[in-house]
């Protein structure tokens, strides 16, 4: 991940000057990329813009009077690319804030809990899915308190079945199988 790399650089800078090669690289990076947030945001936008232009390259353009499906997206794709480039250049020229540390654990666990919900809800039922979300996401915050996790599980399962499935009639399967 691009963002991850730049965050790594930050931690290396703070962790000392043991690795000479790496430090030089950092100083080089700092001199060339003055505003990291702008620089990486710019690149992110450029990649979106280029993707839009590339994927949409075969959409019929039509004419200004009868615009085809490709007309507006091409304008937007070009615009995003240009704006993204401007942002990247600004990131190179103007000093800006560094990117805050990225913590991988909460990022992965929170998103994983949602993904597991998607994977389990239809095959294993709402109860299993709810328990999965609560347990996995709870691990994202340091040492788990299992008593509390159990409590949240019970409350949310009760809500999911009592309120959402029974009272509001959402078509959830309750049990696996």
């Amino acid at each position, binding site marked *: 991940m691009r963002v991850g790399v730049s965050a790594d650089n930050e931690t290396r800078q703070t962790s000392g000057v043991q690795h000479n090669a790496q430090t030089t690289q950092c100083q080089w990076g700092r001199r060339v990329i003055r505003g990291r947030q702008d620089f990486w945001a710019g690149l992110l936008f450029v990649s979106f813009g280029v993707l839009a232009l590339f994927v949409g390259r075969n959409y019929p353009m039509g004419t200004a009077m009868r615009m085809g499906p490709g007309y507006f997206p091409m304008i937007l794709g070009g615009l995003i690319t240009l704006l993204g480039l401007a942002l990247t250049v600004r990131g190179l020229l103007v000093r800006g804030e560094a*990117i805050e540390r990225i913590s991988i654990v909460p990022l992965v666990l929170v*998103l994983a809990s949602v993904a597991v919900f*998607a994977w389990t809800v239809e095959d294993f039922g709402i109860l299993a899915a709810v328990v999965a979300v609560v347990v996995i996401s709870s691990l994202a915050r340091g040492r788990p308190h299992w008593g509390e996790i159990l409590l949240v599980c019970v409350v949310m399962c009760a809500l999911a079945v009592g309120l959402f499935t029974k009272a509001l009639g959402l078509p959830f399967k309750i049990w696996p199988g």
Partner: protein
Amino acid sequence: MDLLDNLALGFAVALTWQNIAFCFLGVALGTLIGVLPGIGPVATIAMLLPITFHFEPASALIMLAGIYYGAQYGGSTTSILVNLPGEASSVVTCLDGYQMARQGRAGAALAIAALGSFFAGCVATLILATFAPPLAELAFKFGPAERFSLMVLGLVAAVTLAHGSLLKAVTMIVLGILLGLVGADPEVGRMRYTFGLPQLTDGIGFVVVAMGIFAFGEIIANLERGENREVFTANIKGLWPTREDFRLAWKAVLRGTGIGSLLGILPGGGAVLGAFASYMVEKKLAKDPSRFGKGAIEGVAGPESANNAGAQTSFIPLLTLGIPSNAVMALMVGAMIIHGIQPGPQVMQERPELFWGMIASMWVGNLLLVILNLPLIGIWVKLLSVPYRLLYPAILVLCCIGIYSLNNSVFDVGLAVLFGLLGYVFIKLKCEPAPLMLGFVLGPMLEENLRKAMTISRGDPSVFVTRPLSMSMLLIAAVLLILVVLPAVRRKREVAFQEP
């Protein structure tokens, strides 16, 4: 008088038992999420949207609107007691409200905030009722060219008034518009950016985008920060402000209401901007500005009135022109569409009971909020002691259920994971997500009107500048952009958003 007839109709709708109950549910939920940091009105409304499908349209909108302005009340409670803004619009309330709490005057601060908000809410409701009909009248004269220009103006105003980098905000808007185009082309049915996935034929659901970017990204960022809260609950015995407090506060409330109402109407305004502006005005006007930041009651009264007034008047562009002015209003568009109502000037004529019922409900809601927030303040304070580690798994479960149940689609939940990742990256790169949401909702309308206008003008783009209404709107947009880019104004704008 027309206004009275209309309001009478509105109250007839808002005062049915069912709608009072939904209004109560909305403002109570709003207060709740306002009190709880880490979940805002955008995520909440997104979460509840799918469920409102089962309600009557008027009840659904009354409840969702209640969540938004209710959150403004709740947000002030956490600002004052914990120095943690529950909502972005309560950031400035922290400055003096928290200091008052440290001096043992939390009760007075809470009471002034609630009473000021109530007053502001009542005035804003009247403003909404007075100005909405003529604006809607005007909107009926709009052709595709005007509608396109109006949306451009709305989007431009939204970025110039938002805080943070202008360049990033503009790019986020364009990216949002592009995301809004995903799916079948409305005119010829050609698939665009669906990557061969049939689930994307109808486009990306806005609940998916809102939930991913606002809720998931936000939760991950909160988890990184960790929590250290210090709650001042011991000292909220004396709830009633002193005579001196009232004497100092009433002018601030009046000014805050005015500023908030005005800035709320502007696209991109909403509740946040008014609160900031009001705080600065109070500080400028004060005889002794050094009291600010040390527990000046005007610093609570002004911004709190302003954010509540702004939250309500920001419904004006939505209800009259069909153009959402901030991310919450963008979701209200979604809520209306779920019920088969196309937001715009026609709502007032075709569904007067809906329109006026919603406005009248705001007054009812404000009354309920005062009751909820003054005598019952103890309950909300207790909720503050619920640790975040218990809350966020519950919030995540509700989000998952919400996303899934919109279309009973596992695909949507998976897509929300992607947007969650994107939202987190945006937070790290300091890209405000609200402009993206606005662009996303307006994107399809923007394209449709652009196409229509160009077809009518036979491919001549000058149609946008030769029609007077359209030209003046584009002109205002251009002036706004130029103003913000000017160095002098730019410096002021940065100060305005950073100083308080």
